[in-house]
């Protein structure tokens, strides 16, 4: 019983981190139909912000989190203006952005490698390798803090989207871009701000990732498939779906790792992606696409 409970806790702990890693990706797709393959490399960039704050000034990664959000959000604004804005009205926008974001990912990876070398890094606040033990069962404090903060940030974002005026505009644009524009929504501004928020969320995730996983510039290639499987399973563009999928898949992967084998735990994410595309392509919380 203790084994089952422990596995559940470890799965949930990992799920919290994945939820934040995937939420920015989901938001950007939901509002702008950008399949942002550069999202994981932005998480790495956020992790570097936290790392240097910790390394040079001893600042806790949790304290560096807002700094990483701001820096990455500014990078997001510049990136949107330079790369994505011009083609925003193209009929092939989504398809084009796959290639564009792939190129951005490679450029950012190269830039990070040039700036910080390809050496692997990790921040080491005391709680990162500590745990709360209750009998035989333990809760890793690093993942616990990261998971709680992830949920707080995602809840804050959800409240912003639901109750703020700008949140209405974002949701309206997500549902129907043309209709929102006809009703007076400045969709260009909505897209810009949404992209900045999405990349800012990558910065936040990076701060948390910096003490949960070690990282280096090329690490993002390992994450993209996992994050895509979370977002697709949850329903592309659905924030709630991404959170549910993150917890669900992480818990399943933890049980697979414990009772079947570590090799198969990673496969869980890809198998889920395969199955959901076969059975329910719109994902758990996505809307069925309308037929033309």
């Amino acid at each position, binding site marked *: 019983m203790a*084994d089952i409970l*422990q*596995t559940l806790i*470890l799965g949930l*702990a*990992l799920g919290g981190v994945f939820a934040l890693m995937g939420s920015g990706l989901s938001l950007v797709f939901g509002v702008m139909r950008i399949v942002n393959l550069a999202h994981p490399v932005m998480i790495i960039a956020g992790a570097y912000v936290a790392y240097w704050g910790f390394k040079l000034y001893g600042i806790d990664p949790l304290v560096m989190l807002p700094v990483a959000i701001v820096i990455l959000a500014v990078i997001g604004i510049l990136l949107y203006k330079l790369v994505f804005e011009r083609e925003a009205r193209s009929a092939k926008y989504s398809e084009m952005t796959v290639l564009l974001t792939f190129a951005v990912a490679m450029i950012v*990876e*190269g830039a990070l*490698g040039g700036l910080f*070398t*390809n*050496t*692997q*890094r*990790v921040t*080491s606040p005391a709680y*990162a*390798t*500590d*745990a709360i*033990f209750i009998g035989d069962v*333990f809760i*890793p404090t*690093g*993942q616990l803090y990261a998971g709680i903060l992830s949920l707080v940030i995602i809840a804050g974002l959800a409240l912003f989207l639901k109750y703020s005026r700008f949140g209405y505009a974002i949701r309206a644009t997500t549902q129907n871009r043309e209709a929102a524009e006809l009703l007076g929504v400045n969709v260009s501004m909505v897209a810009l701000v949404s992209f900045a928020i999405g990349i800012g969320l990558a910065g936040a995730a990076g701060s948390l990732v910096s003490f949960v*996983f*070690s990282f*280096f*510039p*090329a690490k993002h*290639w*390992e*994450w993209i*498939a*996992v994050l895509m499987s979370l977002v697709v399973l949850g329903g592309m563009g659905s924030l709630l779906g991404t959170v549910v999928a993150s917890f669900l898949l992480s818990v399943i*992967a*933890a049980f697979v*790792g*414990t009772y079947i*084998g*570590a*090799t198969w*735990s*990673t*496969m869980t994410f890809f198998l889920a992606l395969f199955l959901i595309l076969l059975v329910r392509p719109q994902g758990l919380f996505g809307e069925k696409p309308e037929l033309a």
Partner: protein
Amino acid sequence: MKRAIWTVAGLMSVSMLALGASAQAAEPLKIGASLPLTGGFSIAGTKHQQGYELCVDTINERGGILGRQVELLVSDNRSDPATAINQYERFINVDGVEAVYGTFSSRLSFPVASILAKNNMVHALPAGGALRIYTQGHKNIFYFQPNAAEYVGASLAGVIADLVPEGEKPKTAAVVSADDFFANGVWSGLMGEKVMDPADGSLVRDLAPGYLAENDIEVVFSERWPEEGYSDWLNLANQVKRSGAELIVGLTASAEEAVQLTRALKTVRAEPKLVYFSQGTQAEYLEGTGSSAEGVLVHTSWHKDAPFESVLAGEPFSNTDFVAAYQEKFGAVPDEDAAIPFAVCQGIEQAIIGAGSTDNTAMGKWLSERTKENPVRTILGRFNWDELGLPANKPFLMTQWNDGELQFVYPTDEFEGVSAMSYPKGSF
């Protein structure tokens, strides 16, 4: 008049030939290296580039090889075997390199070995310890680490037999490993598995009963994690802890994996007697793990304090010289990922000088004729090879992290300066 014209023409021809010969002599000697500068192996690949560059720069400062400056061509293979193959083909058939340096990792070296053999190039490997690479029948293949991965376990067995007091030796082991070419080789040796040839399924070596069984150590937990994308380290560490194993063997394929596993073992509060990892000598391992690294054993091919004497450009060049030169150029203390490629570069240089040309057949012959008394001398020590291309009678160094320093603890009779091994490990 006619004779004078012929005389002048003759003189001009001789002059032009001389000029041509001189121009050829001045032509740089191109050497190619395809390295994983991006992708999963980028950390080690970047250090390999530094090792090669430092060696080539030093050779050039000392007058080059056979009077010719060396031009190093490095291409990024993105940690992809197919790209590595294409780049070596390009080096040989388009860029006209006269020699090559090997790439990093068994996964890339295995297919590259066939291409270099097909083109009759000397293949000096800085990394590529899987035994299967050397049993393909390739000639001119020379490994610049002490032995194949399958035999790494001999050093761990030696440590347990010689350094751990009787009655305190670990009796149970948890063996966890990356599903990686090199790590799988070490696993086979420890667990006593059969090594098969992937091409025809034939038996390469039967390693039964394995180094652990030979030392009466029972394996109570074993698990492999996938080569890429694994993130469930706490779960794995928890299973290791719950197995109650006294010896933890972590066949990590990179320093990054060693960091993840060490931190996870600390989090779950594992308390083994002995811990051995196959990667973790790098400075970033210590940075990522801090005091948790204390007591962790890691095998290595090189150590900064090893008193190896070697030659470079015909002059003495010690291991200490290498450490100083590396620190001056890159501002950091080197680790084996930079030292091993440096030794490869030394080996190729000595082969060219020994053969008197860049004829790779002659270079290969010269290298294969090296003996214990007349070896290749590198900062990794002396090298001569058996018929497979594996070094003869060269033990791995076993190192241990103690007081924030990587100290070499085994073998104890190789050279002076061996530190006492701390035992038992206890908590992380």
